[in-house]
């Protein structure tokens, strides 16, 4: 691969790119925990209630009939509690396991095996692209990409699809789905907005729509976009934008058609140290391949001049002027 990334480098990048990867399933875990607590509390209070009734009956010479039927009630409520508790815990466990799977995947960035490491990087790009596509509203593409890349567990498709459903129902002027969403996210929204007055739900719906639309417009602020902008800047040089196009390199991403236009408004790479690349061979010019200047001012690598030398003459590839090999002068860059 062209760009070198050490394990330490990958680790630093993890820190700035992977917050959504972990936080979203965590929030689901949190939600399911609260739901579980609610269920357990509710069923526990049901049990406590029927037990209290039984205790009351027992305290005043109870008939077998009434005791037996109350006991049935207790057993029934205990069974319901058991069932709900088990279901809730399973849901919580599932969420926690999803978080764990994602962390395990992230840990694989430090694999020693080059094949595994490059597979991880490929998946990383695919993951970020899936999220970007979801933000843009290209849901089918995102789902297809996630499936082909084998990363369905690692991306937050569900969250966006839920939002899509709400949005689409709002567009049909139906509020049921949105209300359900609000109810579902009630406690978090409560912390955020402090308004759950039933009369205010209309405003909440509008707020959702606004936020959701903003989410789409903010497609250009996906982690993918920010990463891409940074990368294009890091590669961009003045040579990519020379008017006569003479300095374009077929390997340089910023020189390629669409990326060239995209990178135009972005800052350029900062280079404090010189590096010269021979136009003929694409090799670096350094002490092993010293830079040589022809009388017309153009500089080429010594090895390249040797390779194009014919009868002690060289033809400048840029201007087609013919010079003697001996006319090439060594130059020094520091």
């Amino acid at each position, binding site marked *: 691969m062209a760009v070198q990334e050490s394990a330490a480098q990958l680790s630093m990048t993890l820190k700035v790119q992977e917050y959504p990867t972990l936080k979203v399933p965590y929030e689901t875990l949190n939600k399911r925990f609260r739901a579980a*607590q609610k269920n357990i509390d509710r069923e526990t209070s049901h*049990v406590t209630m029927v037990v209290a009734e039984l205790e009351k009956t027992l305290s005043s010479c109870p*008939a077998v009939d009434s005791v037996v039927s109350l006991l049935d009630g207790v057993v029934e409520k205990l069974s319901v509690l058991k069932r709900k*508790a088990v279901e809730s815990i399973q849901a919580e466990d599932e969420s*926690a396991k999803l978080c764990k799977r994602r962390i395990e995947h992230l840990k694989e960035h430090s694999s020693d095996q080059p094949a595994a490491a490059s597979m991880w990087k490929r998946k990383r790009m695919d993951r970020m692209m899936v999220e970007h596509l979801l933000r843009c509203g290209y849901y089918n*593409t995102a789902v297809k990409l996630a499936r082909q890349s084998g990363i369905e567990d690692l991306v937050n498709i569900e969250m966006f699809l839920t939002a899509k459903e709400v949005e689409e129902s709002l567009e049909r002027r139906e509020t049921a789905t949105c209300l359900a969403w609000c109810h579902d996210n009630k406690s978090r929204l409560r912390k955020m907005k402090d308004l759950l007055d039933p009369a205010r739900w209309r405003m909440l719906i509008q707020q959702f729509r606004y936020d959701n639309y903003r989410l789409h417009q903010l497609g250009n602020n996906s982690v993918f976009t920010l990463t891409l902008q940074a990368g294009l800047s890091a590669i961009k040089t003045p040579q990519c934008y020379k008017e006569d196009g003479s300095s374009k390199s077929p390997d340089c991403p910023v020189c390629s058609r669409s990326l060239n236009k995209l990178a135009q408004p*972005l*800052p350029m790479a900062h280079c404090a*140290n010189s590096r010269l690349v021979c136009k003929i061979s694409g090799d670096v010019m350094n002490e092993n391949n010293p830079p040589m200047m022809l009388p017309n001012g153009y500089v080429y690598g010594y090895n390249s001049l040797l390779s194009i030398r014919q009868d002690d003459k060289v033809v400048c590839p840029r201007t087609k002027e013919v010079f003697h090999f001996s006319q090439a002068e060594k130059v020094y860059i520091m």
Partner: protein
Amino acid sequence: MDQCVTVERELEKVLHKFSGYGQLCERGLEELIDYTGGLKHEILQSHGQDAELSGTLSLVLTQCCKRIKDTVQKLASDHKDIHSSVSRVGKAIDKNFDSDISSVGIDGCWQADSQRLLNEVMVEHFFRQGMLDVAEELCQESGLSVDPSQKEPFVELNRILEALKVRVLRPALEWAVSNREMLIAQNSSLEFKLHRLYFISLLMGGTTNQREALQYAKNFQPFALNHQKDIQVLMGSLVYLRQGIENSPYVHLLDANQWADICDIFTRDACALLGLSVESPLSVSFSAGCVALPALINIKAVIEQRQCTGVWNQKDELPIEVDLGKKCWYHSIFACPILRQQTTDNNPPMKLVCGHIISRDALNKMFNGSK
């Protein structure tokens, strides 16, 4: 890595607690249900229909009630206790991962047309990777029209690569033969390498393939000049066909890496022939961004902290150098060693008599400075 380990540790604790709680909950409630059911049974057995409950059983039942209440209330509070472990996971994530990196983006720099351009880039990227249906789906969802000439070379290349990955050499060979002249012009030995691998695959079949292998060796003829040594090695290995190549000094011919390498060689030579870069431009740019991002975020934080935000916004250059490795040196850069700035058309590099190169501004400064 530490970030992952820290979060994972908290997650493990939570998972452990869920598992323990789940077991206790299920077992405890099961026991209670059985016990209570058993009591009911006992009552029915020892009493007539309209009888009154005996004193002993009444006492036992009262105790049972207490036990039930205590158990279920403990269940509820035990679950509540897990909450702190759950929220510790969230805190670990907040502490170890950056929640908002939008500060590093440049507001409003990618407006109207950029969405379309980015979609084009992504479509081309998917064609390159052989993900044809993803590319077409994106075209459909984004309203782009597919340019067949853009997609064609990649379709064929991917078809050949898929075959190579399962050691089927025919499509690659056909392609190499039909592009023979251009491949030779760029010093590629692809065709020979493919023939060589086919020969080796015959060898792996043992003595039954001996005649076919000898027949196939005729294909080496045009390459006899440039690959003499290689051909000699291949022909020499035939001697060991009976006892098996894996038991001979020629065992290296069976090295599996060659099959992985031929995919890379084909990709490289084919892309060079078509004037394409080997790696998808989007992949390279994205990888470069992964390297640049943490550094830029850090420097942005430092700039803001020291309240010198002007430094970044004024220049249209990144504030720091990002090291991408030598493979990403696509263009020459000349930075004046004295003024430490890149040269431009207005400030071009100048050669001194001694052969050293500095920028014109530096040259002027030297003239004006010294006497």
